């Protein structure tokens, strides 16, 4: 495949080291081994020209992920998290979206690759599972057919072999009596079983990267626990990288190694799970943590909601997109209103995009909000 090749050290072979052109943004996932770096996004931008204006759904996103690890992308509606995942898979129609930046999957750069090259990678090296398995599976084909289809498009296999593989995958995801269930239609499965089937389909070609977009939001809590556990087990078995997209901080706490907090199309905070939960740095992250009702704490005080509403992606607030809702936005004079903050390293491997002085931030966090130490 004639895409940009990288040698073992992760640098582009031949010519200058293009890394030096990018001054900001994390080059390595927090606390990870660069030689295992498997997925890397650099300055990803996905813009949609519409009649009402340019929707900047993702506006300068960078992160890395290595095999066997899980990146949790946290954000609310309009944060750009789903758009990002579709962008990695190359599922945005060229006619509708302007995609720029770089996405490196192993040694291949995806954005500059042709449609056909990316298509061959889809399903085989990177796969996705979606939020609602009932609408994401074709209603007129059996589960077996859909899994076999995914398998045979990437592997030369006879129908018989493919069917045997499909049955094995269904067994692996914990569906009882897979040899008969393989001929059932999606509507004949319960919600949890359907999601398992979708996972089986996504993993049928043994992809290196699995993107799970809100995989459990539509499920009951006991089923959700089973599905999350299943994803973890399979990840360990296949040594895949997983991106878990969710708005639920509980899910992310259970599953992720690193967390990327997105707001209005940009990363506002990026760090390990310990960083984010115990030493959060960005006011938006504080807001999320303080406004969440907790299962493990009795109702002591009022929730502290984040004032205001999520921003329009067409008319993004100037400067820091979060500033209209930030309780501390005024502390830097006009800075938050006029200048877009870039990601800066607050601690090794822990990046924040905020204009607040780091010491001041820490003081607010610890004394005022009592979030961590």
């Amino acid at each position, binding site marked *: 495949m004639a895409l940009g090749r990288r040698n073992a050290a992760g640098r582009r072979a031949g010519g200058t080291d293009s890394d030096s052109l990018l001054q900001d943004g994390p080059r390595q996932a927090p606390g990870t081994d660069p030689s295992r770096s498997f997925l890397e996004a650099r300055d990803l931008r996905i813009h949609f020209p519409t009649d009402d204006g340019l929707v900047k759904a993702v506006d300068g996103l960078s992160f890395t992920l290595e095999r066997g690890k899980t990146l949790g992308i946290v954000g609310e509606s309009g944060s750009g998290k789903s758009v990002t995942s579709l962008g990695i898979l190359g599922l945005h129609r060229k006619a509708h979206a302007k995609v720029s930046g770089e996405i490196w999957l192993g040694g291949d750069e995806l954005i500059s690759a042709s449609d056909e090259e990316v298509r061959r990678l889809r399903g085989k090296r990177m796969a996705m599972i979606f939020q609602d398995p009932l609408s994401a599976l074709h209603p007129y084909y059996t589960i077996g057919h859909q899994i076999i289809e995914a398998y045979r*498009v*990437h592997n030369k296999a006879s129908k018989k072999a493919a069917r045997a593989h499909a049955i094995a995958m269904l067994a692996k995801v914990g569906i009882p009596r897979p040899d008969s269930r393989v001929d059932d*239609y999606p509507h004949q499965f319960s919600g949890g079983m359907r999601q398992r089937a979708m996972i089986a389909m996504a993993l049928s070609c043994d992809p290196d990267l699995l993107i799970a977009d809100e995989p459990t939001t539509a499920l009951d809590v006991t089923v959700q626990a089973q599905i999350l556990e299943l994803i973890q087990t399979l990840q360990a078995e296949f040594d895949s990288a997983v991106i878990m997209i969710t708005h639920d901080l509980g899910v992310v706490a259970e599953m992720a190694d690193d967390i990327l907090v997105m707001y209005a199309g940009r990363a506002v905070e990026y760090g390990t799970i310990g960083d984010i939960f115990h030493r959060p740095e960005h006011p938006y992250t504080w807001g999320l943590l303080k406004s969440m009702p907790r299962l493990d704490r009795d109702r002591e005080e009022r929730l502290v909601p984040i004032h205001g509403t999520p921003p329009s992606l067409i008319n993004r607030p100037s400067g820091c997109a979060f500033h209209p809702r930030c309780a501390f936005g005024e502390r830097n004079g006009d800075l938050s209103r006029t200048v877009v903050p870039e990601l800066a390293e607050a601690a090794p491997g822990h990046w924040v995009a905020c204009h607040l002085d780091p010491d001041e931030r820490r003081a607010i966090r610890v004394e005022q909000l009592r979030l961590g130490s």
Partner: protein
Amino acid sequence: MVVFAIFFLLPRIVGQTPEGMAQRYVGRDSSPEAIEATVKRLHLDDSIPTQYGRFVKAIFFGDDYSLGPQKAHCPAPCLGFSFNNNQPVWNEITRRLPVTASLALGAAVIWLISGVTTGVISALRRGSVFDRSSMSVALAGVSLPIYFTGLVALTVLSYKWGWFPGGGTYVSIVDNPAKWAYALVLPWVTLSFLYAAQYARFTRAGMLETMGEDYVRTARAKGLPERTVVTKHALRAAITPIVTIFGLDLGLLLGGAVLTESTFSLPGLGKLVIDGIRNNDLPVVLGVTTFAALFIVIANLLVDIVYAMLDPKVRT
């Protein structure tokens, strides 16, 4: 039920009396005795339900019309005798069926392929020149009546330029397949234009809907080639309502493509029934209507079966 309604209402509408009907058989200047005899022979003075019962029975078993020394046997299936030529209606129907069938089936193939393809391409290239122009043409297609398009086609393509034979020519397929097709080109095109336009619009709307569905996105995410995504996933889902409509349309058409046959003077069932109406030939109208009703019932049944084959959710 429909047949019964026609049986009951049509003569009343037309203002026929039993005597009047009998007179149609016997001739204009016949004696009252002859008329009376005919009325008796054809059981025209029986009550309506009785006549209806006879009619139904005749379909299965045939009937005898005794006429004193004259006996006329109408073999099963018996739909009566035509007023005009005293022939069993059934024979007339069977003679004309191949014409209608040729017209309907040929047009069906054409409109299905052209309509669906146009619809799919329009949906995929939404907003393009192709899309906008094809939809404008489709709008014309559904708005223009067949007798208009047919006559225009005849005038320009047949009389003026002489590319195709004019109306009234029909050659059976067994006699000369080439000529058969050639003679039917204009009627086919005229008839399909209307239906293709409809189907193009349906398909386009259906495709636009299915292409936006989650399962299409999943299909792409699996790495399937775009063509497979469009045909096996999007089109497959969008086609179900179209197939059912197709079955019904075809069923109706087989009962007589009235307008097209009239315009092109094709000796089919449609023309037969139109002529029958014009001539107040009650048995013919009755017979063809019954026959057409049969086709519609069969079409409905087949459509239900096909729908269950296509949509697994219906089967449970």
